[in-house]
């Protein structure tokens, strides 16, 4: 740049980091403070996840796997609650387990909260198995007998003491697996349980993983896919119980627009500088 003489293209290609941060921060904070409500459109992937649970009977059992930790909580916790509300509302029984150690407390909290709302009884309507290390090993072995790894539940009580678990031994007794995924475990569920045991699976995943999970939806290896906070908001809409997901949608919209505006500005600047450079080059040749 010629000593301090900045023209427009220089300004807009070198916007300060702090300015960007501030604008993104405001784009998220303002809609939340204003409490703006938005409606969301339902996507086919979420719809089919919803249909999978809708198709179950009241005596059926689903297995929910908490494979995330507080880092992905804003995206996946709303899904957990929405799915639990859907399942408990239909009198479906729930088994919860955990592959991401740091996820157990938040999973437990979500389960207890929703179970309380519906007046469900521990050991009769739902069970919390807790965590075991060895992910794929646990998944494969549960296809033979859940008690091989989980002889006791999270409270260290033998599974057989609970009436609900009396007739549940392996995936044959589980109607549907719901994986809530922030890491590699979603792929493991598909590869080691879906394929081996012909098990029906739906996944709720973080936005980061959503794109690479779609081929599995397309191939029918999973029945439904709930992606990111938007997916959670769609599920909340489907069960008619607005929650965290829908609350966040306005902020999500604003922030996306802000980022898109930044991308456009950056590109305008880029083309202006390119043209300027070309002009300089041509002028330089003249001299």
């Amino acid at each position, binding site marked *: 740049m010629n000593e301090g003489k900045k023209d427009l293209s220089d300004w807009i290609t070198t916007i300060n980091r702090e300015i960007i941060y501030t604008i993104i921060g405001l784009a998220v904070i303002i809609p939340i403070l204003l409490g703006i409500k938005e409606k969301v459109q339902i996507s086919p992937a979420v719809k089919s996840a919803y249909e999978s649970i809708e198709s179950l009977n009241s005596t059926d059992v689903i297995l929910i796997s908490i494979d995330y930790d507080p*880092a992905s909580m804003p995206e996946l916790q709303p899904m957990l609650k929405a799915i639990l509300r859907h399942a408990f509302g239909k009198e479906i029984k729930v088994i919860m387990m955990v592959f991401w150690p740091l996820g157990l407390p938040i999973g437990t909290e979500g389960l207890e909260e929703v179970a309380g709302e519906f007046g469900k009884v521990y050991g009769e309507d739902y069970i919390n198995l807790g965590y075991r290390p060895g992910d794929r090993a646990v998944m494969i072995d549960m296809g033979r007998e859940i008690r091989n790894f989980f002889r006791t539940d999270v409270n260290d009580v033998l599974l057989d003491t609970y009436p609900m678990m009396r007739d549940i031994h392996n995936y044959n007794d589980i109607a549907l697996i719901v994986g809530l995924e922030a890491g590699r475990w979603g792929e493991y569920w598909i590869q080691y349980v879906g394929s081996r045991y012909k098990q029906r699976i739906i996944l709720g995943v973080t936005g980061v993983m959503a794109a690479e999970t779609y081929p599995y939806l397309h191939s029918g290896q999973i029945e439904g896919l709930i992606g990111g906070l938007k997916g959670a908001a769609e599920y909340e809409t489907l069960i008619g119980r607005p929650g965290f997901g829908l609350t966040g949608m306005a902020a999500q919209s604003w922030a996306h627009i802000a980022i898109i505006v930044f991308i456009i500005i950056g590109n305008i600047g880029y083309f202006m500088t390119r043209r300027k450079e070309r002009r300089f080059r041509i002028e330089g040749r003249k001299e």
Partner: protein
Amino acid sequence: MKKRVPLLITFITGFIIIVSFFVPHRPFGQLETETLIWYAIIFAFTLVIGVDSLVRLHIKHIRKRKKGWWYSIVFFAGFFYCLTIGIISLIQTPNIFQPGTVFFYGYETILIPLQATMFALLAFFVASASYRAFRARNIEATLLLIAAVIVMIGRVPAGYKLWPKLPVIANWIFDVLQIGAMRGILIGVALGAVAMSLRLILGIERTYLS
């Protein structure tokens, strides 16, 4: 002893897993179950090793009074605080992960905010990165840019208000247009992984033993 035995162990365990996958008859099917349980137990010890490396690093920092060594004291403060409340809870109740225990209290006040906020920082970085790095430099970069923008706007309520067809297009990109490429990438990586497992089981790949 240093190389042969581990190579033999890898071969035997890998072989057992594969054979028992195809042969359900006793003893193979059962062998797989047992081996998998053992795997989980040994795996737990590797976690201990990971924690150990961290503890050693911070002891070293404090001993040598390295720059910023007092942060290592903060590390130990967090470490022993968690260990203490964990042990207290273990004595008090059978399920320390239930809301209401001291351990859960520590988790809620320290772990959740710290971890969740670290990831929340990424929102700012991703915005800044999109602004700086997302340039339509060539055809490839332009395709990347257009797909990203359509998905970003089509996936939020604002996109529907802008043009009701936008969410449909965004969904179509996911359900159809990107499937082939993602599948191709996944297949490529998977072939590499299956090839490597053969090299590991037959002891052709030994880098992990160095």
